[in-house]
């Protein structure tokens, strides 16, 4: 995307510019949080409540 088209799309109208900032913040925060949570649950696999719950529901004892 050249700067020309970026200018036409985003920066030309102030209302669109402000709107794109808000939308960008929303999208970034959501994806960032999802990414961090995904990393967290991968890194802590086996220690999380979801793992305990899974074992409880499947009646699985004695397994790590």
């Amino acid at each position, binding site marked *: 995307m050249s700067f020309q088209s970026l200018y036409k799309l985003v920066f030309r109208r102030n209302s669109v510019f402000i709107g794109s900032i808000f939308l960008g913040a929303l999208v970034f925060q959501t994806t960032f949080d999802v990414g961090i949570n995904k990393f*967290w649950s991968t890194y802590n696999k086996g220690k999380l409540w979801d793992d305990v719950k899974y074992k409880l529901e499947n009646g699985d004892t*004695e397994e790590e």
Partner: protein
Amino acid sequence: MFKRQLFQSTKRFVSTTTSASSSQKSSLLSKMVTAGVAFSGLTAATLLYSDSTYSKAMTAAEHGLHAPQFDWPHNGPFNTFDHASIRRGYQVYREVCAACHSLDRVAWRNLVDVSHTTDEVKEMAAQFEYDDEPDDQGNPRKRPGKLSDYIPGPYPNEEAARAANQGALPPDLSLIVKARHGGPDYVFSLLTGYPDEPPEGVTLPAGTNYNPYFPGGAIAMGRVLFDDLVEYEDGTPATTSQMAKDVTTFLHWAAEPELDERKKYGLKAIIILSSLYLLSVWVKKFKWSAIKTRKIVFNPPNTPKRR
């Protein structure tokens, strides 16, 4: 007048060391001062030395043995609690610790999706009775516990707790891990650190037990965890250290339920701030590049030759 006095007094003060007329007097004074300093210094040293031969100040006996650092599963910047351990730890708390210790700041709802399912917690809460609104005649009523209720303690108030424990108050365990130096390491060491016999030469006050990790060594709580005291539902062997580890993990969670969120926010903050820092470095280089790379050329004016 005042100025003159001030001047004189200043002069007198200076003269104590410089004036020849009072040198004899000042040397006597300085000898006395030196003697006084030496005397008080020697006295203090003697007292300190004699004190150190029997005193227990600043020793392991006074402050408690320093707990070793254990490799907890939740140590480290990205690690959460071992939630299976929290679940077992609640069982140990309920079956052992709850006989004396309260857990005032933890509500039943806090356990949901941490160590138990909603239905399990509802069932656990319903086994306890709470005060309800009075009926039409104004008689007090009781109702089963709800998720929003806080976990009830074993005693109605502090006096009852002291009376039941020979004057010693079992501390509330909600924040005990944060409230003790050494945190979970201390709690674990304390629970597993009871020797069979107190060491020789240790005299304990009545109703106390010896524990080297407890400051002072004499703790009112006796050893409570013994092998196979509880039976874990997930089949984990209930050794003393296993139970101590589980209950310490549970208490650490109770003291610090925000641990997950805290560590996640830390990670996010580090990522965002370091990228902003790198961005600012780039912007600085970009903005300065014109200034840094400019060339200053000096063309000397043509001066006519003199000769």
